[in-house]
């Protein structure tokens, strides 16, 4: 049954409003970050925290959503689940890159090295590599690309608790998960505002990417209907 597309004008308006809200949130977040007190040991360098941690959160959220969509696709045949999984995986690759760039920049200043093979960094890198593998599988996996990638996403989801709890179970130079709850009020406000801005950005990007996938699926639907109509005519 062909789906009825919503009005392009309405979609554009919604997107513009969403972008406007996102920009406003980022502006407020930047002001809050600028006003936030300097950390006494690392000073200005510590403010990478307000970008690094939200990106890490979105890497894990993207993986979780990708896995959820993959379950829906694999076990219920949900095409929408598959489109959500692909969109989330691509965003996971994007925000994962942000984590893996911002992290080493901060590490160099804080620890004196760009990289250490400790539990949090290693498991985060693995998670990002799995999402990259997902995107590769979708592009080059051939006939079974979607099923292959979906199963990969489920294995990737196992890494999420490892990423989060690694600093608790293994000796690690990386800050603990309790850092956020111990922030002073000035820093706490900036952090939550930054996290909100990034999360809204994620939803906006997800919505745009999903609409592209939906449009592509709609095109395929229409092509099939056109072929059927031509066959019936002949």
């Amino acid at each position, binding site marked *: 049954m062909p789906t009825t597309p919503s009005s392009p004008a309405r979609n554009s308006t919604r997107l513009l409003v969403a972008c406007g809200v996102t920009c406003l949130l980022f502006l407020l977040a930047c002001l809050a970050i600028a006003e936030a007190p300097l950390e006494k040991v690392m000073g200005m360098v510590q403010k990478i925290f307000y970008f690094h941690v939200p990106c890490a959160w979105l890497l894990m959220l993207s993986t979780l959503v990708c896995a959820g969509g993959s379950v829906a696709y*694999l*076990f219920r045949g949900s095409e929408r689940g598959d489109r959500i999984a692909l969109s989330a995986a691509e965003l996971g690759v994007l925000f994962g890159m942000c984590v893996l760039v911002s992290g080493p920049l901060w590490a160099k200043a804080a620890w004196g090295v760009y990289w250490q093979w400790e539990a949090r960094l*290693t*498991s985060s890198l*693995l998670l990002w*590599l*799995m999402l*990259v*593998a997902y995107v*590769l*599988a979708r592009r*080059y*996996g*051939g*006939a*079974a*690309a979607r*099923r*292959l990638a*979906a*199963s*990969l996403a*489920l*294995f*990737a989801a*196992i890494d999420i608790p*490892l990423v989060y709890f690694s600093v608790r179970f293994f000796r690690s130079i990386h800050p603990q998960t309790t850092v956020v709850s111990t922030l002073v009020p000035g820093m706490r406000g900036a952090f939550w505002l930054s996290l909100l801005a990034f999360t809204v950005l994620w939803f906006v990007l997800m919505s745009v990417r999903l609409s592209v996938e939906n449009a592509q699926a709609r095109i395929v639907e229409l092509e099939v209907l056109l072929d059927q109509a031509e066959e019936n005519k002949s």
Partner: protein
Amino acid sequence: MTGSFWRYTLLIAGKDLRIEGKSREVLYTMGFSAALVVLVFSFALSNATDPAQGPITAAGVLWAATLFTGTVALARVLDRERENEAIRALLLSPAPRAAIYLGKLIAVSLLMIAVEVVLAVIVGGLFSTGVFAHPVWLALVLLLGTLGFASTGVVFSAALLRSRSRDALLGALLFPIVIPVLLAASRATACMFDPLSPDLEPVAFWVRFLAATDVIYISLGLWVFEPVVSGE
């Protein structure tokens, strides 16, 4: 899982092992490739390693060679099913999908372990390391590490059965997932190989880690194998 389930599992594993017993294709190609990989690593690292690092290097080389050439075993054991549409016949048979998965897992694991034992001897000789100082622990680590690798490998290899890029993609998809297995197995093996190591407590820790990982990976493999191959 009833008696007939395990009967199917053993039938499928037995079939693959019997085919391999006649041709020995996987054993010879994987074994030779793995030995060459060990040689390449030993040449590449010969001037860079001080004697104290010997056990760590030996353990790393053993597991790196195993993983790189394990994809050969995975590809060939599943590839055989493409000939004469054998995979379709297998899926149309009364054998449960989970039994097919476990049968393939057992066959691939046994082939890999056979090669790993030979590799351990080669590594011990090249790196002057006492690899059989703790044979029971070594056997356990080889078994658990191989199961961890093969449990995901069988799923992806089956999914890539009809893909043109399967040779390029299998490693790219598999290695990020099995790196935790590689890490745990090589850490445990390095501790066993090190004659100066005070106790085997780290080995026990990594064995527990491997066991937990294997349980998770095999459970996930059993769960996703059916939808992955159902499109064949």
